[in-house]
């Protein structure tokens, strides 16, 4: 929910008399009966507003900007961390690292653990309207984070690492607006294609047509094997940063520069993986698909820094 919408909601909620709040929300008809029941109307309007915003975010996870982190070096008992334990540990670790935070944790039916952290400072109470959202599936190494400031980042990551019984956490270089796309890509919830022994037979054709058909079939096969079949996770962008130093020995002025030249390339699409697959199958991108592009689904990342020494960082 963008700031304007949040602001509007706040003002609206302030205008509606407390006694009419429940009936107004019922009339709005935007919340399911179950969600309406979960709201506690004895709380302050401010609290209810925050809860409405939180409900909105969990119902519309494909907004904002989600960043992925990867937990590394699990301890021996990392695989047996269960929900109650994780909740307690996370809350206690985070409150040890920073006072005046409010944490709400809830598990959804698809086993996703949603964490909402409202940060307060010395002067003000925790503000759930500007909360950080974290989504994590227990026993997987990935954590998805939304709306985290750089000030609070080390604290949150530390609390996550400790409560999941890992020793390290690092940026996974996968970001995007659609949480479901990021999740499906990393959890491999899409139709991957693997080599089969028996390729489908080609219909009998003239020689030229046959050669063309074979080349086309081969491109289609390689494109499918690289990116997958059917509907692909709707990743919307990929970012490549190329860093290279000038190499002509006759031009000293340029070679003496310390900083490398930087070239940034960003691909955007409503569904980047399907676009890239089409590029490969139609021949626009050469096949076999270059590792620069195949790394996106293979390694599950969409941010790459390519320097002179290392082909893909």
């Amino acid at each position, binding site marked *: 929910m963008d700031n304007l919408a949040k602001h509007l909601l706040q003002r609206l909620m302030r205008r509606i008399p407390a006694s009419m709040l429940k009936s107004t929300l019922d009339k709005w008809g935007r919340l399911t009966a179950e969600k309406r029941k979960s709201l506690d109307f004895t709380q302050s309007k401010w609290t209810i507003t925050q809860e409405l915003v939180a409900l909105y975010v969990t119902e519309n996870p494909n907004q904002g900007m989600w960043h992925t982190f990867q937990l590394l070096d*699990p301890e021996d008992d990392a*695989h*047996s961390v*269960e*929900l109650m334990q994780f909740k307690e540990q996370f809350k206690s670790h985070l409150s040890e690292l920073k006072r005046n935070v409010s944490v709400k944790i809830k598990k959804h039916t698809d*086993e996703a653990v949603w964490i909402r952290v409202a940060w307060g400072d010395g002067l003000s109470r925790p503000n759930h309207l500007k909360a950080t959202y974290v989504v994590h*599936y*227990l*026993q*997987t*190494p*990935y954590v998805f984070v939304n709306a985290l400031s750089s000030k609070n980042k080390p604290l949150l990551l530390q609390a996550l690492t400790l409560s999941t019984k890992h020793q390290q956490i690092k940026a996974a270089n996968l970001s995007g607006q659609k949480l479901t796309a990021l999740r499906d890509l*990393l*959890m*491999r919830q899409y139709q*991957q294609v*693997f*080599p*089969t*022994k028996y390729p489908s037979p080609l219909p009998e054709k003239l020689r030229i047509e046959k050669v063309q058909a074979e080349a086309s079939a081969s491109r289609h096969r390689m494109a499918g094997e690289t990116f997958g079949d059917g509907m692909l996770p709707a990743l919307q962008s990929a970012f490549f940063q190329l860093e290279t130093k000038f190499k002509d020995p006759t031009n000293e002025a340029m070679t003496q520069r310390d900083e490398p030249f930087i070239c940034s390339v960003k691909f955007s699409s409503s569904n980047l993986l399907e676009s890239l697959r089409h590029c490969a199958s139609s021949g626009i991108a050469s096949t076999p698909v270059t590792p620069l592009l195949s790394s996106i689904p*293979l390694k599950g990342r969409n941010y790459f820094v390519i320097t002179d020494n290392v082909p893909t960082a």
Partner: protein
Amino acid sequence: MEGASMRGVLSHLSLLEVQARSRGSQVPQQPSRVKELKAKVEALTSQRDQLKAELQIHKKLQKLRAPVDKRREDGEDEEMDVDSGSSELFHLMARHSELTDLLHAHNLIGGYDAIITNGGKGMCFSLATEYEGVYLDTYKLELNLKPKVKISRHNIPPFIALNSLAEQSNLQTDVRAFLATVSQHLNAFAGRRQQLKLVKEQHKSVEVMESNLLCSILVLMFTVPKDKTPLLCTLEYTDHTRYLPTRVHLNCQDKLLPDSPNWKKNCSLLKEVPVHRALTAIKKASDIV
């Protein structure tokens, strides 16, 4: 006296006459009954013929599947009295059923479907999972063999710690052991997940309070018939290569209930038998609703 007996005889005679007449009207019913029986005979005959034909085909296929040398010895080929077109079909059908059986046997003794990929530099393995005789998901794992054995692509979910399994078994020297471990983990996971699905389907009176993607923990809420007391049962599957729990723990407001002989028995049952079956037995013993 004479009048009464005369009346008796006459009325008897008229009764016999009526009977004789009604029996006469029954005769036309016979043909329709006969028609019915004839139709039944036809149906049964055609069914018998069909089964005979199927039996013939099966016998021929069996003969075709016999080893080639034996066939030549016995000269059974000459007994084939079908035309060349359909005998080719029979040959193909026989070969197909032979290969399917061979593949099935190969899987049963622990082999994997493997394909050489990447111009001979890689292999793609199919790891099938099954539980209680039903095939479940099949996972694929591609390995690059040169210069070093390395995991390339796969569709194994991330809660199966593939990389740590690769580290544990020496991937470079013993690929088979690695594949065996992965297959073990996958099959145990598939089995646990299937048990959870069956618990949800077959035991609606039991509430699933907690589970996870790996299906390594399961918390169930039972209702004890007496007083409708809730009883929380936690099943921990800490050995991920097994589909039975390593630890069963009960929680109840009535502190004595978990220690009762019945429930001690139920706890050990839950450790020995898949959970959906154990629950059926516990329900039967009326220990839970």
